[in-house]
């Protein structure tokens, strides 16, 4: 007999994980999710994959610039730069 909020299903649990990692879930939802995770190894591994995905995003370095793009910008740099010594 369910007196408080009903238990989460996996389908609902995965929808809460990004907010869980952001620390932005309500206390009620956080408790429901943690209760679900405690009994569900599959959602626990899904959550770990979310963490890995976010960690990997933080390690993405910028793609190398195309040389033409860089050349254009360097030209603009010299064209628009104010001389620092012209006071």
């Amino acid at each position, binding site marked *: 007999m369910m007196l408080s909020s009903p238990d989460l299903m996996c389908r609902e649990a995965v929808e809460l994980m990004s907010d869980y990692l952001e620390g932005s879930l309500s206390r009620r939802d956080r408790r429901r999710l943690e209760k679900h995770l405690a009994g569900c190894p599959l959602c626990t591994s899904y959550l770990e994959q979310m963490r890995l995905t976010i960690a990997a995003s933080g390690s993405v370095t910028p793609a190398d610039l195309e040389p033409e793009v860089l050349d254009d910008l360097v030209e603009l740099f010299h064209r628009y730069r104010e001389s*620092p010594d012209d006071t």
Partner: protein
Amino acid sequence: MEDLELLAQMLGGDEKAFTELVARYNSTLIRVARYYVGSDASAEDVAQETWIAVIRGVSSFEGRSTFKTWLFHILVNRARSVGSREHRMIAVDPNESSGLAPSRFDQGGMWREPPVPFTDVIENGMVNQRIVQLVREAISLLPEPQQAVVTLRDVEGLSTKEVADLLELSEANARVILHRGRTRVRADVESKMKERET
């Protein structure tokens, strides 16, 4: 070297400092601009105008935010004016799928197709280049709003509130877009793991 040191050197005329800042941020500028404007070419133009504004010191950096937040604000202001000329609509569609196929779950809402394990992605306690590369590709395939939000939040490390302020979204909407983007990126990496398994 820190962004601010590079900025100071750049303002002193150092071309190398300028190209280093460009190398760090130009791809993010283009991604975020793409959220507002209708084509890659327009996004590249907006990024270029942003650099010109930085070179000319049009709005000077006052140290109230980080360099990159300031830079992204210049970009967004420009992109927004170009974007409204191009009449681009930005909306969060509440019915849009979050990126995980409903067929992954059975009728009771439990996993029917469980998550495929991520193997060989950790080296010395850190994520390795293989998964970083998969994630980079997956982010580049996201729809524009998700690409902008995931890039600013997870790649550049802005807070969700900073992202929401920058893109003039409510924090709730920014979190929904972030959730969808992360869900898709994880699913994309998972499908690559699956390919390798079979």
